[in-house]
């Protein structure tokens, strides 16, 4: 049984327990007291299972376990029972040596098989990436050995995160287009249903973020981006907390995703920047001339600042979301680390782990909103700086 499996069981158990918090505690305490009892609790009945089916009895590696769940994957693992793995195979799209290769990730048989000379690297620097396997015939040996080609193919696969992004794009489109229809149908009337749930958020972004940071006159132009940005981040933060299928992908905890979002902010900022903004960078007002004249110290610092802003946006969201996931996974790892020492210790620590994980989950719900808010607010502030007219 794979690690994934444990993760799934733990998370799904946890999710349910979030709703029946009190019941869980009693149940968990009872279980901890009757050590070794075979009545299965979702988070503990996987305890006996091996960490990896390829390497039975291998020592539990918490770092690997956690990273495996945080990074992207070429297939979407849903559940494993024994040797049966329910996964959603996703399309692999590779561009290598001038040729396009498209096939389903199920061809790799969960990373155990090669297809068209490609395979998923199980270890090394390229672990988790698709590499080309080359056949080499060492001269002094008749056996054929396979080595990874150092030149990696360009991987445009629809990975777990890409798939999750598509799902959230479809969700957001459906949600807001239907809300827009409601707005049109009930124009001038009080909000109703899902419309009244999201209207406070829309108004919050408009009145507190956009109007406050950009100003009454120019905020309207940036509203579509700010709203899309906020709801995209918020939805993906929340989906990342859901352990079962449509959720579970760590989209906003992926540096490529947050980087693209920050790049959007960067380009919009610089493309809509006015004279005052560039003045501020190349001829900063209120700074002594010798900081600009022979050696353009201030312009260099300001120019550097132009690029640190999106970088900071990227890292903040990525680090916050990833850290939350790491901590939750860390608590669950404790169960297996202690479980390897003794069965009783594993069961006992599970109570503590679950309680702490629940606490983290609640905190993460808050962080999901705060990070979406902060990213949107900072983007709006940068737009405000760019469009600001001279004092």
């Amino acid at each position, binding site marked *: 049984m794979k690690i994934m499996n444990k993760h799934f069981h733990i998370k799904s158990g946890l999710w349910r327990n979030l709703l029946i918090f009190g019941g869980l505690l009693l149940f968990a305490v009872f279980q901890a007291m009757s050590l070794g009892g075979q009545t299965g609790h979702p988070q503990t009945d996987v305890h006996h299972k091996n960490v990896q089916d390829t390497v039975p009895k291998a020592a539990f590696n918490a770092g690997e376990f956690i990273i495996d769940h945080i990074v992207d994957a070429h297939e979407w693992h849903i559940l494993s029972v024994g040797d049966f793995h329910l996964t959603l195979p996703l399309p692999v799209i590779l561009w290598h040596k001038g040729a396009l290769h498209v096939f389903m990730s199920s061809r790799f048989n969960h990373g155990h098989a090669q297809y068209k000379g490609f395979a998923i690297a199980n270890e090394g620097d390229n672990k988790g990436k698709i590499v080309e396997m080359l056949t080499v015939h060492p001269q002094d040996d008749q056996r054929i050995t396979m080595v990874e080609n150092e030149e990696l193919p360009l991987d445009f696969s629809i990975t777990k995160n890409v798939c999750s992004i598509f799902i959230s*794009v479809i969700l957001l489109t459906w949600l807001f287009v239907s809300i*827009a229809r409601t707005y049109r149908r009930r124009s001038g009337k009080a909000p109703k249903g899902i419309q009244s749930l999201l209207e406070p958020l829309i108004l919050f972004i408009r009145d507190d973020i956009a109007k406050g940071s950009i100003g009454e006159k120019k905020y309207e132009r940036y509203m579509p981006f700010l*709203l899309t940005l906020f709801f995209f981040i918020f939805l993906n933060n929340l989906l990342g907390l859901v352990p079962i299928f449509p959720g579970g992908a760590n989209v906003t905890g992926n540096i*490529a995703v947050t980087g693209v979002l920050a790049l959007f902010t960067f380009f919009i900022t610089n493309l809509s920047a006015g004279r005052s903004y560039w003045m501020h960078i190349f001829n900063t007002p209120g700074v002594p001339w010798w900081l600009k004249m022979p050696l353009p110290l201030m312009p260099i610092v300001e120019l550097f600042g132009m690029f640190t802003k999106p970088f900071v946006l990227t890292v903040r969201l990525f680090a916050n979301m990833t850290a939350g996931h790491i901590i939750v996974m860390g608590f669950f790892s404790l169960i297996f680390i202690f479980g390897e020492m003794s069965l009783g210790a594993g069961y006992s620590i599970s109570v503590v782990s679950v309680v702490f994980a629940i606490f983290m989950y609640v905190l993460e719900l808050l962080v999901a909103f705060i990070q979406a808010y902060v990213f949107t607010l900072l983007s709006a502030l940068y737009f405000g700086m760019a469009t600001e007219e001279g004092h």
Partner: protein
Amino acid sequence: MELVSPGIGLIFWMTLAFGTLLLILGRFAWKPIMKSLTEREDSIDEALHQADKARQEMLDMKFSNVQLLAEAKEERDALLQQARVIKDKIIEEARESATAEANRIIESAHETIENDKKAALVDLRNQIAMLSIEIAEKVLQRELDSKEKQNAYADELIRKTSLN
């Protein structure tokens, strides 16, 4: 370190997906939503303004109503006062004319009575004169046969006449 090294595939798909989302939502969701939000706010603003105006108007109307009522009351009082004066005058006039009429009637009655009395007296005098003449005739017829008797009778007659 896959964790901190962005993959080209994800960057490509993310840019495509987010860009598309931005275009679709911008065109089909945010535009109508923002528009109807603004419209609703404007209409609420307008409605509040209207309500304020209506309240002010009501207040004004109330004030003018009170004024009107007061005026009406005053007018009524004045009318009543006038009516009372007119009534008094009419009664006074009626009384005066009635008195005058009564006086006139009494006057004419007096006159009639006086006239009747005078007529009666004249009639009586005439009758007395006639009777006197008749009596005198009879006396004369009876007594004038003797001289003494004539004298005595004349005396008697004179006595009787002076008694009248």
